[in-house]
C-alpha cells in the first residue's frame, strides 16, 4: 500500500501494477490530462509535475520531476501537484499569469510542463537568476517559442513575490505527510497486482533481507533509467524493490576529511553537498541530464547502472572514491574504479546493494577539473567526459594524478598509461603533449551517433591540454585552486563560461 497526496486529496493505492508511471496514473487513472506525454523517456519535460516532500527538518521541499519515468511507488509519503492544481477559483497562478503575459506558449503542448518547472523554481528561488532559470528549464523542450518569451515569464514569475494558495495550506500538508510517514514508520510496504509487486522497505536491514529472499528482484532508486525499459522497451518488472525510502541510504556525512553520501541521495542533493568542496563537480552536475532527472535520479543509481557514458563514475574515480556495499549484515568497501568490470557489468553480487559513496577530501593543494563534451550544452549525454585530478610537489613535479574518462571505453576508467607518462614528471606543456599521445594506448573509443572514435580521442587529448592551461594558476604553496581568486582566468577557458 502506498499513500500520498494528489493535490490536497489523500490517495491510498494498493492494487496497482508497480510498473505504472505517474504519468499513466494521472492521465489514464485520474483523467488529469493537463500533464502531457511528449517522449515517455524523460527527455522533453512535457510531463513535468511537482513533488512536495518533507526534508529531514520536516520542511516541505518542492521538486520538479518527469512523471513519464517515475514509477508510482515513488509517490509514497509525498504530495503530487500537477498543473490542474495551480489555478484556484478562476485565479491564475502567478507562474501561469507570467506565461500568459509573456507569450510563453504557442502550440501549448510543452506549456503545462514549463509552468510546473517554473512553479517548482519559484518555490525554491527568491529572485530571477538567468543561470537558475536555465537550470530549471533545460529539461523542458519547446519547439515553438525559441524560449526567450519563457525566460521573460520566469523573470516576471520570480520577481513578483506572491503568496499562492499552497502557502497557507503548508501546515496541513505537512501534517498529512507526517501522518503518512508515521503510520508506515519503519515497516516495509508493498504494492501488488496479479504477479507484479514492489516492496518499499524503510531500513537497510529490511532491504538486505528482501534481497536475500528475492534475489531476482530489480532495484529501483530514482527509476529515471529503469522506467525507460518499461516505457520504451516493453519491459514489465515482476518484482521491484524501491530504495528511495530506505533511511540509511538517504543519509550523508561531511567532515573536513571525508564526504559520505547515501546511495539513494538525489543527484541534485549530491550536487549541493559537494559544491563547496569540488566546484567542478557542481559545474558537471549543472549539465547532468535535467533538473527533473537530478531531482529524481540518485548517485547510487548512476553508479550501479554502469553505463559507459554515465558522468558520475569518471568524476568520482578521479577523486578516488570508495563504495560501501552491503549483503545481509556484511558491509564491504571497494574502490569505485574496481567496481566496473565490463560493459554494464559490476562487482555487485546477487542480493548485494550499494549503501554509501565515500570521498576522501584531498589535502591542498590539488587541482580537479571535469569536462563534459556533448552535442548540446544542456541535457545531453556525454560524447566523452574527462575528470582530471593532479597534485604537484614543490618542484612542480606530478605527485599524484588520476585521469578518468567516460565515453572512451566499455566502462568509465582511468587512463593508466597516460597517468604513468606524467607521474613524477615536471608539469610542463612538453610532458603534457607527450602524455596526450598515450591516450590512444589507453583508449580505442567507439564511433556512434554522438561522436566518432577520432573525435573522442582528439578531444580527450585536447582536454588534457586544456587541463594544463587551467592549471596555470595552480599554486604549489597551498592555495586551493578550485576556490581560486583567479576567477578571471578560469572563467574564460570553457564554452560554458560564455553562457
Amino acid at each position, binding site marked *: 500500500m502506498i499513500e500520498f497526496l494528489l493535490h490536497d486529496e489523500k490517495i491510498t493505492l494498493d492494487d496497482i501494477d508497480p510498473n505504472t508511471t505517474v504519468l499513466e496514473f494521472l492521465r489514464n487513472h485520474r483523467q488529469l490530462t493537463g500533464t502531457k506525454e511528449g517522449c515517455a523517456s524523460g527527455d522533453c519535460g512535457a510531463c513535468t509535475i511537482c513533488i512536495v516532500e518533507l526534508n529531514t527538518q520536516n520542511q516541505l521541499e518542492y521538486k520538479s520531476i518527469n512523471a513519464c519515468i517515475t514509477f508510482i511507488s515513488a509517490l509514497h509519503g509525498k504530495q503530487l501537484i500537477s498543473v490542474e492544481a495551480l489555478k484556484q477559483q478562476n485565479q491564475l497562478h502567478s507562474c501561469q499569469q507570467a506565461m500568459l503575459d509573456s507569450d510563453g*506558449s504557442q502550440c501549448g503542448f510543452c506549456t503545462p510542463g514549463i509552468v510546473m518547472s517554473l512553479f517548482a523554481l519559484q518555490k525554491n528561488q527568491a529572485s530571477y537568476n538567468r543561470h537558475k532559470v536555465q537550470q530549471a528549464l533545460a529539461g523542458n523542450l519547446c519547439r515553438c517559442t525559441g524560449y526567450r518569451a519563457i525566460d521573460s515569464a520566469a523573470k516576471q514569475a520570480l520577481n513578483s513575490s506572491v503568496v499562492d494558495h499552497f502557502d497557507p495550506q503548508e501546515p496541513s500538508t505537512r501534517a498529512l505527510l507526517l501522518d503518512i510517514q508515521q503510520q508506515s514508520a519503519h515497516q516495509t510496504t508493498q504494492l501488488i497486482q496479479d504477479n507484479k509487486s514492489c516492496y518499499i522497505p524503510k531500513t537497510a536491514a529490511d532491504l538486505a533481507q528482501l534481497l536475500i529472499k528475492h534475489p531476482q528482484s530489480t532495484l529501483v532508486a530514482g527509476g529515471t533509467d529503469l522506467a525507460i525499459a518499461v516505457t520504451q522497451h516493453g519491459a514489465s518488472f515482476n518484482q521491484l524493490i524501491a530504495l528511495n525510502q530506505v533511511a540509511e541510504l538517504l543519509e550523508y556525512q561531511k567532515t573536513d576529511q571525508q564526504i559520505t553520501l547515501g546511495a539513494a541521495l538525489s543527484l541534485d542533493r549530491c550536487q549541493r553537498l559537494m559544491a563547496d568542496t569540488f566546484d567542478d563537480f557542481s559545474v558537471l552536475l549543472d549539465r547532468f541530464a535535467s533538473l527533473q532527472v537530478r531531482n529524481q535520479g540518485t548517485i547510487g543509481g548512476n553508479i550501479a547502472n554502469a553505463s559507459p557514458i554515465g558522468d558520475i563514475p569518471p568524476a568520482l574515480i578521479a577523486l578516488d572514491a570508495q563504495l560501501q556495499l552491503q549483503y545481509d549484515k556484511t558491509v564491504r568497501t571497494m574502490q569505485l574504479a574496481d567496481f566496473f568490470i565490463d560493459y554494464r557489468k559490476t562487482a555487485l553480487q546477487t542480493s548485494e546493494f550499494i549503501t554509501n559513496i565515500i570521498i576522501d577530501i584531498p589535502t591542498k593543494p590539488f587541482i580537479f577539473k571535469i569536462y563534459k563534451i556533448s552535442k548540446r*550544452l544542456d541535457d545531453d549525454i556525454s560524447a566523452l567526459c574527462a575528470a582530471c585530478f593532479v597534485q604537484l610537489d614543490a618542484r612542480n613535479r606530478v605527485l599524484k594524478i588520476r585521469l578518468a574518462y567516460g565515453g572512451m571505453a566499455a566502462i568509465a576508467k582511468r587512463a593508466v598509461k597516460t597517468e604513468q607518462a606524467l607521474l613524477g614528471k615536471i608539469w610542463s606543456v612538453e610532458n603534457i603533449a607527450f602524455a596526450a599521445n598515450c591516450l590512444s594506448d589507453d583508449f580505442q573509443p567507439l564511433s556512434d551517433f554522438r561522436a566518432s572514435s577520432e573525435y573522442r580521442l582528439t578531444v580527450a587529448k585536447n582536454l588534457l591540454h586544456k587541463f594544463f592551461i587551467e592549471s596555470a594558476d595552480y599554486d604549489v604553496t597551498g592555495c586551493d585552486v578550485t576556490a581560486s581568486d583567479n576567477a578571471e582566468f578560469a572563467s574564460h577557458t570553457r564554452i560554458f563560461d560564455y553562457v
Partner: protein
Amino acid sequence: MSKLNKTVISQKEMLAASAQKLATGVGKKVAHESAARHITGEAIYIDDRLEYPNQLHLYPVLSDVAHGVITHVNIEQCLKVTGVERVILAKDIPGDPDIGPVLPGDPLLAADKVEYIGQVIAIVAANSLAIAKKAASLVQVKITPLEAVLNVVQAHNLKHYVMDPHSHSIGDASKALATAQHSIKGELEIGGQEHFYLETQICSTVPTEEGGMQVYTSSQHPSEVQKLVAQVIGVAQHKVIVDMRRMGGGFGGKETQAAQPACLAALTSFLTGKPCKMRLPRELDMRMTGKRHPFVVQFEVGFDDQGLLSGLKLDLLADCGYSPDLSGSIVDRAMFHADNAYYLGHADITGYRCKTHRASNTAYRGFGGPQGMVAIENIMDHIARYLKIDPLTVRKLNYYQKSHRNLTHYGQLVEGNLLDEMTAQLEESCEYQQRRQEIVKFNQQSSFMKKGIALTPVKFGISFTATFLNQGGALIHIYTDGSIHLNHGGTEMGQGLHTKVAQIVAEEFQVDIQHILVSATNTDKVPNTSPTAASSGTDINGKAAQNAARTIKQRLINFAAEHYQVAIDKISFVNNHIKLDKKVISFVELIQQAYFGQVSLSSTGFYKTPKIFYDREKASGTPFYYYSYGMSCSEVIIDTLTGEYKVLRADILHDVGDSLNSRLDIGQIEGGFVQGMGWMTTEELVWSDEGKLLTSNPMSYKIPAITDIPNDFRVKLVENRKNPEDTVYHSKAVGEPPFMLAISVWCALKDAVASLNNYNTQPRLNSPATPEAVLWAVQDIASSQAHLKPQEQVST
C-alpha cells in the same frame, strides 16, 4: 469585458464608447486565443479526449529492412493475445491502398515490398496501447532484402529519382563561367531535420451511422485527410467529417504525413465498427515519418575582382526518401530560393529528386527554401574568403537592385525590395563594423577561444507554388446575442492563426475579440481547404474571413439604412457600436433588429490570391505574390580544442508588412530563428549502414534547449513598411521566413573558424555544424593553412 451584452446603456455612454478605438482589432497586441488554456492544461489535444468504453488502440508493425520483398506475414500468435481485436494488412483495405498526396507511391500499408526501415506492414488493434504494442511484436514478417540506396549522391549517379529533374535558367551560365575573372567549384552537404513537434502524430476516429467516419486529427490539412480517408475506406467524401481543433506543433510535419495514422485509424474503425485511436510513440514517429530533405549541393560560381557574381551552375541533390510526397514542390522551392537576395545574372539551377530507401521526406518550415538559401550563402562566404574581403561586402554588392538587376532566374521581378535599407539599418543598430573590429582583436589575443560574426539576409517568396492551392475559405455566423462564430480553412498549430483571423473579423465588425469564437477547423463547415502551409494561413484565410464579414456587414448596413432611415454613408461600425448619423446603437441591438428584420446573419467567404502564375514547362512566371524580407546578425564563440560553441548575440530585423499582431509575429520570428539554429547546429540525423535511423528519440536527437538561445537576443520588426500588395491589412506572412535568419549562426561559426587562417580560407563546414564538425573544420584549416583542398579547385 465590453458592454456588448448590456442592451440598456445610455446614448451618452454609447457615444463615448464609439469615440474610442477598438482595443482588440487588427494591429493590437492580443494574446494567443488559447494561451489561457495552454497554461492551465485545459486546452484539449486529441489524446486528452475522453475515450469510449469500446475504444481500440493501434500499434504498427514496421519493416526492419530498408528495401526488400515481403515473403511471409503470420499474424496467428498476435491474434491469440487477450485484448487483441484485429490485425490489419494491406489486403484488408476496401478502397484505394495508396495515400500519396500528389503522386501515388505511399502505400498505406506495405503489401509486397518495403522501401524503408519503419514502413508500416500491419496494424494491431487492441483494447489498450500496451496490449497492442506487445501483440505487435508477435507478428512474424519475413522479408527478402534487396539492395538499398541509402546515399543521395549514389542515387543521383544511378539516376534513381522519385521525379524527373527540373531546371531554372537565366542568361548563359556556361559562357559566363568560361569568361569569369575568378571561379570556384565546390560541394556542400546540408543535413535534414526532424520536426519534433511536441505532440506526436495522432488521430482518433468514430464510425458514423451512414457508414462514414468522424475523424479527429492533428493535421495541417484536414481536407486532404478527409479525401484520403474517404478513398481508403471507399466512401464519398461527404461521409467523412474531419475535425481539427489544435496541433501540438506542426512545422510541416503534419501537412501530408498526419494522413497515415488518420487513414489507419479510420480503416480500423471501418473494419471493426469501433472507435480507434492511433498515437505514435515518439520513437515510432521519428522512424516512420519523413523529415526535412537532406541536400548535397554541387556548384561552380564565377565572379569578378569585387566579388560580383557573373555566373552560376548549381545542382541541388535532394534526398527525397522512398516516395514523391511533396518533393516536387519542395525541390522547386529550393531552386526558387537558390538566389536568396542576390541577382544571379547567368545561372543554371537544377533540382534532382533523388530516391533513397528512407522515410519519405516532407514539408518542413521553409519547404526547401532554407536548403536553397544555404547553398548561395555558402557561395557568398566562399567568394569573400577567396577575395579576402568581408562577406557582408560581397553580400551587399550582389543584392537585387530596385530598378535594374531585379529579375530572378524564374522570371519574376523583385518588387518592394527592402534589402538595402534593412541591411543598413541592422548593420548600424547591431554595430556590425565595430564588433567586427573587436572580434578580430579578440581572436588575435585569445589562444583557443575564437569569435565569429555574420550578417545574412532573407528574401522569401510568399504563395504556394502550386498556384491552385492559393485559395481560402471562411464561415461566419452571428447569433442573436451578438456573439460571433468564426470558422475558416486554416489550422491552429500554435502560430496564432485563429487569433489573427479573429482580429480581422473583430476589426471588420468593430466588436471586441472576446465576442468572437474561432471553432475547430472542420471539413463540414469550410470545404476543400488548402493546407495551412507556405506561411499563407493568414493571407488566404484572413482574407476569406474578411470577405465573409464584409458580406454580412453589407447586409447589416443595407438593413440599418432602411430600418433606421439613415443614409448608407452615415452608417459606421465603431468599437462595439454602430453610428447611425447622430444616433448610436450597440452592435447587439443591430443584430437583434436585423434578425427580426429577416436578415441572414451567416455567410461564407472566399479568397484567391491574385496575380500569380507559374508555367512549370517554361520554368518561368510570377509564382510569388510578394516577398518577405529579414536580416540577422549573429555572433558566436567556438572552443577550438573541442569544437563546442555558443551563440553570444543575435540581432534580427524582420519585415512583416503592417503587423496584424506584433506579439504573435515576434513569437514566430524568435521561434523560427531558434528552430533554424537547431537545424544548422546540433540537430544531427544519423543512420546506420543498413538505413536505420539511430537518432530516433530526444535522447539522441538534440533540438535547442533554453541555454542554446543567444545570450543577447534582439528582435525588431521593420516599421512603417506596409505590404505594397493588397494583402489583408497590408500584412505579410511570417511563419517560414524567420527560420532562415539562422543561417547567420552557421556563417558566424564559419567566420570564427576562418579567423584561424586570418580569414583567407573558406572553412570546410557542412550543416549541421555539430561540435565535432566544427572541430574538424578547425583542424582542417589549421593543417591546410593557405593550401586549398583538392575538392575546392580554384582557378583564376
